[in-house]
């Protein structure tokens, strides 16, 4: 199939159109973060830096940011360990109930967040008798983050095969040595990509968090939800969103560089 010039043109045009649609709301957020209107009316009536100054002095927002980063880091770490273990088991072994296990990994993300949320809330409080806290949020987040790590790692394992590991074993390396020197280095970039997605997923999660967070725990999305409808806080929320999008370029760029470098090596 060779695409005609016209077909390429149409596809390119559609791509530009979709991207414009994707970035229009983000553009509105960006402009509104400088707008003097607190009700976000368009076109903006005037220019101000007030919200940017307020955002960087807002203790609530900064505390919430720290809480979110803590939760996302720990849940990502747990997800990395559990996701790697489960993908090694599913890819390298065949056993009874293998399909059920792979469904089990997907389930926390496939079922709507509100179901996961109330199920875990109910389990923590009535079955386990645990007080909701930051730890219950971490447990909940790690549960649905496992799948992103699992997907990335199992896709990599499928491509790798076991010949290099077998060679390592033939040359006398023990299981741990083979994992440390052979398997892990080959999985590194897949772990990075999966971990990045897990971090993003946890960082932005609101529904499960609502149901599993203890009284004093305020993640960034929870803080945003509290402040979104307060007239003088909405522009501050816009500032935070703009900062997040800009900061997010760095990890995405690194992930892309790693993936790109590997493509060339292959």
């Amino acid at each position, binding site marked *: *199939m*060779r*695409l005609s010039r016209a077909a*390429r043109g149409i*596809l390119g045009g*559609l*791509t530009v159109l*979709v*991207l414009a649609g*994707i970035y229009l*709301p*983000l553009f*509105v*957020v960006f402009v509104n973060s400088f707008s003097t209107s607190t*009700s*976000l*009316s*368009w076109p903006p009536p005037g220019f101000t830096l007030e919200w940017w100054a307020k955002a960087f002095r807002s203790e609530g927002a900064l505390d919430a940011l720290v809480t979110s980063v803590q939760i996302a880091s720990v849940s990502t770490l747990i997800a990395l360990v559990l*996701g790697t*273990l*489960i993908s*090694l*088991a599913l890819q390298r*072994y065949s056993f009874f109930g293998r399909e059920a*296990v792979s*469904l*089990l*990994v*997907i*389930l*926390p993300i*496939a*079922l*709507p967040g*509100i*179901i*996961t949320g*109330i*199920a*875990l*809330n*109910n389990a923590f409080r009535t*079955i386990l008798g645990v007080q909701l806290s930051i730890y219950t949020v971490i447990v909940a987040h*790690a*549960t649905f983050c496992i799948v992103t790590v699992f997907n990335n790692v199992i896709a990599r394992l499928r491509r790798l095969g076991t010949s290099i590991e077998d060679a390592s074993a033939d040359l006398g390396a023990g*299981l*741990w040595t083979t994992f440390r020197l052979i398997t892990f280095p080959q999985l590194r970039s897949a772990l990075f990509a999966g971990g990045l997605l897990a971090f*993003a997923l946890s960082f932005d999660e*609101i*529904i499960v968090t609502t149901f599993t967070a203890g009284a004093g725990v305020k993640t960034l999305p929870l803080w*945003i*939800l509290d402040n*979104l409808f307060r007239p003088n806080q909405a522009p501050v*929320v816009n500032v*935070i*969103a703009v900062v*997040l*999008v800009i900061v997010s*370029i760095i990890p995405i760029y690194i992930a*892309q560089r790693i993936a790109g470098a590997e493509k060339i090596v292959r």
Partner: protein
Amino acid sequence: MTVDATAPPGKRMTVPPPRDTLGRRGSVFLSRHRRLRLTLLLSAPLFWLGLIYIVALVALLITSLWTVDTFTGQISQTWTLENIITVLTGSLYQTVTVRTVGVALLVTIVDIVIALPIAFYMAKVASPRMQRILVIAVLMPLWASYLVKAYAWRSVLSQEGILNWLLAPFGGESPGYGLPATIITLSYLWLPYVILPIYAGLERVPDSLLEASSDLGGKTVSTLRLVVLPIIWPAIIAGSIFSFSLSLGDYITVNIVGGANQLLGNLVYTNVGAANNLPLAAAIALIPIVIIFGYLATVRRTGALENL
């Protein structure tokens, strides 16, 4: 591997046997016992997912068979099908279920229709450099907070919003808040989750296959339909699982841009919170659970679950 040049010819290098440490013995023991290795790998994740998630889900389902004492507000553990029957027969629940499934299906269709051309351009037309830029461009909005994006659409669609301002010269106007706004916003939110698997699927279609098809006289449309579509079908289904199930449980977006409309998520939410009726909420939650399980069972054969 290079031969050690310092070793005199004719004399073999001898490798000393590995030292017999405790770790070594453990390693040898493990490599002889495949089952044990598998058990060790699986026990931690299964313990986590099984004990935390499955137990919680089953407990929730059991709760739906209990009832709430109207005086104390406490859950009383008397077995009854009352909640399930209410949910199955109540006209409110039927209407909202149909509305929610309709919204979720429309969001999924809109997302697939938008994702296909851009994913095709990214995978098959764009230069490698452009490809990388486009992937970043699609991924970046994923990091702007979900709430901020939903709220941005509230501002875009509002009376004084940019959409009215853009459309006014052409005599058009913003759809305002309601179900169309909900569908637009949800499609927007889940679009990257649909584009990425379809793009990955298209990248795996070898160019040679497309050329072979055209060499054999296949027109563009028939090549797309008979060669490309069957290959990327699992990827499309994988993307649809995201948009469908994420829409099915949403209650925040519809609160922000949906006007007075309610989806299943809202009903669950009000019953857990304001109404303090967890058993009824659990019974309502059964609806999306059944729908999702049905959906997963139907698409399992396409191999989509391995493309998530």
